[in-house]
């Protein structure tokens, strides 16, 4: 049995992975401690390749790594017996009952049938599918499918749970429950969760650290609190009428601003910022309907980092069309 080095459950050093001439992972060095870690990055950044390397599904070009003390190059099967993977896309047999699918997932790990059956009932109850476990998977809603996938990943009580877009396609209620379940798995189960998601709010809800990958390299590996503290504080104001005039006045006052329609965020420079904002409002003859300290969220941090890397990323507000916002 491998021994875990220090507190890291995953330890990777100078990992390179090439697909032909394409360098998918470029010198990745990473130490992931126990807890919940968000894996972020735009499409094609190398997140899935990193997961495949961690799962030992693909050979690495160079470098070394251990997962729970097991070498990713030579002990991949032992690693996969300790990891639960929740895939992004549908990976369930529609012709099976939920309990049979989860039981089979346990048997594929080497669990005895009786033990797998009992455990299948337990995990299906844990993910909220106790009453639906004898329904065929083809009759399940999206939320129930995601919960079943999570159950398949948790059946053997893995030390590391890798979740690829766990809230994909879920409504608000199902999403909340999924996130609550993952948080409980980390806190109550004392397990490590690696979560890849494009919904920053979900990552911020579950994870306390993030690893951001861009073009095969790690660009950020910090705790979310540290990142939030490093981002400039802003004051968010909502104006009624004359947002463009207000923007010009604030600009003229030497303030750094970001405008999102009627909402303007002003970088808090010192104690006089609020006074300057109000003076600008008077000059522009606009009504300031709301003013508050803006707490940057993970989405802001992500967009900021990507902009610094020279990649344009649209935030949730930018992606929302009038059809989404009811014409507002």
């Amino acid at each position, binding site marked *: 049995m491998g021994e875990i080095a220090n507190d890291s459950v995953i330890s990777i050093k100078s990992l390179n992975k090439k697909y032909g001439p394409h360098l998918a992972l470029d010198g990745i060095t990473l130490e992931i401690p126990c807890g919940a870690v968000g894996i972020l990055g735009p*499409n*094609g950044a190398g*997140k*899935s*390749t990193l*997961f*495949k390397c961690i*799962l030992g*599904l693909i050979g690495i070009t160079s470098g070394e790594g251990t997962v729970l003390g097991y070498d990713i190059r030579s002990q*991949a*099967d*032992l690693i*996969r*017996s300790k*990891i639960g*993977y929740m*895939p*992004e*896309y*549908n*990976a*369930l*047999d*529609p*012709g*099976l*009952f939920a309990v*049979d699918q989860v*039981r*089979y*997932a346990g*048997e*594929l*790990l*080497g*669990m*005895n049938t009786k*033990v797998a059956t009992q*455990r299948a009932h*337990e995990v299906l109850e*844990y993910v*909220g599918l106790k009453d639906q476990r004898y329904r065929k998977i083809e009759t399940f809603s999206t939320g129930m499918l995601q919960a079943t996938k999570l159950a*398949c990943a948790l*059946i*053997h*009580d893995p030390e590391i749970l890798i979740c*690829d877009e766990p809230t994909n396609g879920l409504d608000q209620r199902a999403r909340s429950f999924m996130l*609550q*379940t993952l948080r*409980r*798995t980390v806190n*109550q*189960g004392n397990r490590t969760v690696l979560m890849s998601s494009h919904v920053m709010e979900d990552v911020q809800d579950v994870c306390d650290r993030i690893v951001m990958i861009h073009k095969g390299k790690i660009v950020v590996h910090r705790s979310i609190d540290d990142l939030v503290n490093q981002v400039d504080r802003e004051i968010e104001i909502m104006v009624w009428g004359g947002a463009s005039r207000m923007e010009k006045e604030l600009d003229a006052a030497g303030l750094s601003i970001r405008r999102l329609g009627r909402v303007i965020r002003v970088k808090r420079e010192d104690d006089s910022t609020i006074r300057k904002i109000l003076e600008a409002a008077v000059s522009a003859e606009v009504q300031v309907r709301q003013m508050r300290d803006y707490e940057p969220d993970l989405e802001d941090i992500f967009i900021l980092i990507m902009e610094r890397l020279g990649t344009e990323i649209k935030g949730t507000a930018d992606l929302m069309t009038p059809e989404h916002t009811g014409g507002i």
Partner: protein
Amino acid sequence: MEVAFGAGDGDEDATAVVAKRQASLGTIFEQNYRPWEGNLGPRWMRNYAIYRHHVYGLFSSKGHRHYHPMVRLLVLVIFLASLTPVPMLFLASLMGGEDGSFLDKMWGVNRYNLWGQVLGYFPRNLCFWPLLTALVVGGMISDDRQHGTSAIYFSRPVTRLDYTAMKFLSVSVILGFVIVFSYFVYYTSAIVFRSEGWAYLADTLPMFLGGMLAGIILVLTYTSIGLALSSISQSRFFAAIAFLSVIYGTKLVSLLIELQFETTFLYILSPYDCLAHLGQYLLGIPYNYEHPLSFSVVSLVVINAASIALLVSRVSSLEVTRE
């Protein structure tokens, strides 16, 4: 006004009866994480789970791979049809008669009948065995491609070799149960119904074993071709139809060439005819083919090798994650 505002003197406490929400009923869901301290079994347990999932599903729908009821029914019909010589042997034994009588020639154990039980074109290789194979291999790997269930396999410590081998074994066992087992039952029932002794067994065992070997090679060849076709599509119907097309199509083309040009050479492209040629050698009966046996043997080896190579290649490409 007093009626409107009540009949009291105004000193009583003002109260109002308002509609109350109905109390919600139901159990309280407490979500508690339950750890598991058990041990995982070795590799053979994982492999057996795959095998059992696919084979048991044909017999029981509870908890195992789902086979459509019509598929199960057809497999049963094919199995029973392959056992038709058994009642005929029973009939022959009841009617008595000398060796060499009509019923004995038609249904009794001899080289030609043993060959026909496994490799005869009609009805077995025209109606039964290809259809049986098509039904079994149809969704064997294509379903995993279609539904993405390969992620369930390969995110576990199941290697691609184990996955392929267990799928291959599952199909072979199902085909072997119908083809080889029915052959075995036929031979055994001939001994039992005719009350034959050890001398008969000693005389006929070599040809019986030859036929059994031919049957096993047929099972392996059909399994290879069927699984290779199943691995290249996401549709079970493509795999089934493609398999039937390969078996019947090559036979038909070769037959047309033979009729037109009076040469049997092109039969080396037909998996069935290669098997039939080899079976004739193993059972010691005259060949129907003019070309040497070695051509058929090499062709069989190439067909199997190409099918397995394709199968391995396609299984290697089954994805666990998506970018």
